[in-house]
C-alpha cells in the first residue's frame, strides 16, 4: 500500500501512516489495519492499539467533512449550545453522528486552543472561530451546498500565503508584547552567536539565565541540556513539544504563527549544544492548520543554510527537523508520551527512570522542550544570560506568555515578566470583577478573590500559560465537573488510579451537582484525590484532582451549600428512585411504596 511506502514502511511513522489513511478513507478499517500491519511488520493488534488511542483516528467511517466543535467550558459559556444546534439543524445529524450519505460528521472535541475566540470549531483542517448561531448556520449551509471548508474562510483562500491563511482563520490577539518574545526580534542573532561558542558555553549561558521550562513543569532548561550532552551516545535528538493541550492555553499557537523562525533557531541552538543531528516538532493535531506555514518555514531555512548540512557554513554542524503531527491526545504533552507518539506508539508515558535525557526517542538521549522555552533560549543566546536573568523574580526569571480567556474584555496573549499579581493581570485584561481565576488550566489552581494578590511565579502560582477568568455568574461545580470529564477523556489508562480514580471523582462531583452529597463526601473527595495523586504514574494523574482540591480549598462554601446531612439513617447520596429504576423497567410496573404518585 502506497501510504506505508511513503514512510518506507517504518513502524515508527505509524501515526503518520494512520493519519494519512484516515484522511483518505475517512476511517481505519480492520482490513486496512491488517495491510498496515503486514507492511510495517507488526501485528494487527499493535496497529489497532494506535488506531484506537487517538481521538482523530476512527474505527468507523467518518464524513468527508468532519466538524469538530470545541466543547471547552469557555466555549460553552460563549454560546456553544446554539452553535451546535445550528449545525445539527442544517446538517440533519446530532453531535456524535455521521450523515447517512457519508458527507458530514459532527462531534465535540476538547480545547482546540482557541479560547480567546470561542466558540471555535475545526472543519477538517480549517479552523472557524467566534462562531454564533448565525455564522454556524451559514457555514453549515455553505458546506452542505458543496463549498470546500477553506472557502468558508476566504473566497480566494488558495491564493493567500500560508501566514495569511493562518491569520485569516485565527486571530493572534497579542495584547501585550514583552521584551523577549513578542517585541522586535532580530533574525538569527542567537544562532549567529551560538556558532561562535562551544556546546559547553551555550549550555552554561542557558543555565546562567535561569530559564525554566515554559510548558508547566518548570525544569531548569540548561540542566536538561547538560544531562543530554553528557550522555555518550551514537545519536541525540531535540524534540519540541507543541502539543499545548491544557484547556485555556494557546500561547504556543501564537509563537508558531508569529515566531516560527525563532523557535527553529532555538531548536538548532539546542542541537548544537547537545550534538543532535535530528529534531522533531510535535505539533498537536488541533494545530494542523499551521502545518503548511511551518513546513514552509522549514523549507526556507534549508534553502538559507540554517538547517541541513554545515549550518551557517560551520563544518559538521548538521541538523534538520521534521514535523510530527499529533492526533488528538492531551497526554502527548507529557514528554514520555510525546516520545512514544513520535515512535508510532500509543501516547503512553514511559517508565522513569530512564529519563528522556538519558534514553528517550528510540532509546537515544533526547531533549524535549516547550515551544516558548526554545524561543527564549534563542533570545538568551543573543542578549546574554544576565539580560534574561534580570527580568522576573528570584527563581522565576525572564518573561512568560500568558494566554488569558474567559469572562474578560481583552482575551489574548500577554507577555509579562514573572512576578505580577493576579490583580495586576486582571486590570490589564479588563476584568476586575472576576469571581474566580483558573491559573495554569485545570491541572493548575482555581483561586478566589481573596487570593488575587498572589503572584504568577514558579513558587507561588505556577502556570504553563493558561489563565481562565470566570465571573460571579458561573457555576464553580459545573466548571469542576467539566474539567474532571476532560481528565477522564484524556487519561491514557495505563495506570489504575488515573484510569479508574478520575471516573470516581467525576461521578462524585455529579452527586454534588445533583444535591445528593452529604458531608462525608467532602472527605471522600479529598481521600480519593490523595490516592490518585500519590500513586499515579505521570503528571496527568498527579494533577487531575486539582480542580477539586483547589476549589474545595478556595471555594468551600460552594461545596457545603450542596451537601445535606443524612436523615433516617439513609444516606442522602442514596437515590431510591434511580436505584429501583432498572427493576421497575424489567417488571414493567411502578413501585407501590416509592412512587409518590402511584395509582392503579
Amino acid at each position, binding site marked *: 500500500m502506497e501510504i506505508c511506502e511513503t514512510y518506507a514502511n517504518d513502524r515508527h511513522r505509524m501515526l503518520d501512516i494512520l493519519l494519512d489513511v484516515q484522511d483518505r478513507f475517512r476511517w481505519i478499517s480492520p482490513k486496512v489495519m491488517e495491510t498496515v500491519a503486514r507492511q510495517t511488520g507488526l*501485528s494487527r*493488534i499493535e496497529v489497532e492499539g494506535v488506531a*484506537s488511542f487517538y481521538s482523530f483516528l476512527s474505527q468507523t467511517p467518518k464524513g468527508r467533512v468532519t466538524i469538530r466543535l470545541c466543547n471547552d467550558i469557555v466555549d460553552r459559556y460563549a454560546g456553544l449550545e446554539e452553535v451546535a444546534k445550528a449545525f445539527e439543524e442544517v446538517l440533519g445529524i446530532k453531535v456524535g453522528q455521521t450523515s447517512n450519505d457519508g458527507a458530514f460528521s459532527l462531534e465535540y472535541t476538547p480545547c482546540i486552543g482557541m479560547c480567546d475566540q470561542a466558540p471555535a470549531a475545526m472543519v477538517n483542517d480549517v479552523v472557524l472561530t467566534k462562531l454564533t448561531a448565525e455564522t454556524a448556520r451559514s457555514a453549515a449551509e455553505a458546506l452542505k451546498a458543496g463549498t470546500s471548508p477553506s472557502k468558508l474562510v476566504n473566497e480566494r483562500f488558495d491564493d493567500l500565503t500560508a501566514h495569511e491563511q493562518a491569520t485569516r482563520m485565527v486571530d493572534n490577539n497579542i495584547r501585550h508584547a514583552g521584551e523577549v518574545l513578542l517585541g522586535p526580534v532580530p533574525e538569527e542573532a542567537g544562532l549567529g552567536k551560538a556558532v561562535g561558542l562551544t556546546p559547553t558555553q551555550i549550555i552554561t549561558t542557558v543555565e546562567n539565565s535561569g530559564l525554566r521550562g515554559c510548558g508547566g513543569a518548570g525544569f531548569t532548561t540548561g540542566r536538561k541540556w547538560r544531562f543530554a550532552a553528557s550522555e555518550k551516545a551514537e545519536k541525540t535528538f531535540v524534540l519540541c513539544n507543541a502539543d499545548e493541550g491544557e484547556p485555556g492555553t494557546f500561547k504556543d499557537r501564537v509563537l508558531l504563527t508569529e515566531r516560527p523562525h525563532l523557535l527553529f533557531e532555538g531548536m538548532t541552538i539546542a542541537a548544537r549544544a547537545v550534538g543532535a543531528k535530528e529534531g522533531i516538532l510535535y505539533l498537536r493535531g488541533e494545530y494542523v492548520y499551521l502545518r503548511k506555514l511551518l513546513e514552509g518555514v522549514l523549507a526556507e531555512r534549508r534553502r538559507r543554510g540554517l538547517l541541513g548540512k554545515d549550518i551557517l557554513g560551520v563544518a559538521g554542524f548538521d541538523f534538520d527537523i521534521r514535523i510530527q503531527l499529533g492526533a488528538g491526545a492531551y497526554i502527548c504533552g507529557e514528554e514520555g508520551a510525546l516520545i512514544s507518539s513520535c515512535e508510532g506508539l500509543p501516547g503512553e508515558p514511559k517508565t522513569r527512570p530512564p529519563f528522556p535525557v538519558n534514553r528517550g526517542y528510540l532509546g537515544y538521549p533526547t531533549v524535549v522542550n516547550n515551544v516558548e522555552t526554545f524561543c527564549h533560549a534563542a533570545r538568551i543566546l543573543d542578549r546574554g544570560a544576565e539580560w534574561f536573568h534580570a527580568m522576573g523574580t528570584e527563581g522565576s526569571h525572564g518573561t512568560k506568555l500568558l494566554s488569558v480567556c474567559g469572562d474578560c474584555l481583552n482575551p489574548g496573549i500577554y507577555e509579562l515578566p514573572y512576578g505580577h499579581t493576579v490583580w495586576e493581570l486582571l486590570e490589564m485584561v479588563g476584568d476586575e470583577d472576576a469571581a474566580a481565576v483558573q491559573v495554569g488550566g485545570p491541572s493548575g489552581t482555581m483561586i478566589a478573590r481573596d487570593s488575587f494578590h498572589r503572584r504568577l511565579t514558579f513558587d507561588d502560582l505556577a502556570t504553563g500559560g493558561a489563565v481562565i477568568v470566570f465571573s460571579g455568574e458561573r457555576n464553580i461545580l459545573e466548571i469542576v465537573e467539566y474539567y474532571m470529564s476532560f481528565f477522564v*477523556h484524556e487519561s491514557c*489508562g495505563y495506570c*489504575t*488510579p488515573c484510569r479508574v480514580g478520575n471516573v470516581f471523582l467525576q461521578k462524585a462531583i455529579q452527586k454534588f451537582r445533583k444535591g445528593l452529597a452529604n458531608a462525608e463526601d467532602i472527605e471522600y473527595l479529598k481521600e480519593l484525590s490523595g490516592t490518585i495523586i500519590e*500513586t499515579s504514574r505521570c503528571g496527568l494523574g498527579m494533577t487531575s484532582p486539582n480542580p477539586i482540591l483547589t476549589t474545595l480549598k478556595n471555594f468551600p462554601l460552594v461545596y457545603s451549600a450542596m451537601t445535606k446531612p443524612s436523615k433516617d439513617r439513609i444516606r442522602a447520596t442514596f437515590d431510591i428512585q434511580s436505584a429501583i429504576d432498572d427493576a421497575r423497567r424489567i417488571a414493567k410496573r411502578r413501585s407501590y411504596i416509592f412512587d409518590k404518585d402511584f395509582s392503579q
Partner: protein
Amino acid sequence: MSGTEKETGFTFTIDGVEVTAHAGQTIMEAADEAGVYIPRLCDHEGLRHQGGCRVCTVKAGGRSVAACTQPAAPGQAVENETPHLSKLRRDLVEMLFHEGNHLCPICEASGNCELQAMAYRLEMVEPTKFPYLEPCRALDASHPDIALDTNRCISCGRCIRASQDVDGKGVFGYVGRGIHRRVAVNGENLAHTDAKVTDHAISEEVCPVGCIIRKRVGFVTPIGEREFDKGLIGHEIEEKRHD
C-alpha cells in the same frame, strides 16, 4: 552490565530490614530475593515490568514510587508495610474491583485469584465506597479450548507480555484509551488468533483473575484446596526470609 558491576552489591532497607541489591535491580527484585513481599498485581516473575497497577507503590527517599520499576538505590530507606501505604493499595485494589465485574462466589477463579487474595491480604473487609462501573462486554468463547471474560480483566497486561515475550506470538494487546482501555485479541476473536491452550499466556499462573478461562478444567481443584486457601498471597516469598 559487566560481571564486576553485577557483583558489587549494596544494601538498602525496607521497613528497617536490610536488603542486599546489585546495580540495575529494582526495589521489588531485591525485595523478592531477600524474602520481603511487596504486594503487586501487574508484575509477574519472568515477565517485563509494567508499572501499571501501582499496587506495589512504596515510599523511597520520601517519594511514592512503583517498586517494580524503581531501581534500588544504596542506603535508601524504603517504606513498604505502613498503614498509609496499605490504605493506598487497598484503594487501588478496590478501584480494580469496581472497574470490572468481580463476583467472587460465581467466579471459577475464586481461591486462585490474585485480586481476591490481595483484597484479603490488604484487609479489604468493609463495604467499599466506590461506585460500580458494571461493564458489559461480550464473552469470547469462540476458541475450542479457551474463553475470555474481559469483564473480569484488571488490565494487568501479563497475558500480553507473556504472549509476546515467552510464546513469541502476540495474541493479546491493549486497545482504547483511558477508562475504555482494555485487553483485546489479535483478530476478530480468539478463534481467529494463533492462541493455544498450551501457551504460557494462557496458563493458570499468568492471568491473575478469572478473565482467561481454560475450558473443561474449571473446578478440577475444588474450592478450599486452592492456592490462596492455603496461605496469604506473598507467603512463598516471605517464607524465604524465615528459612
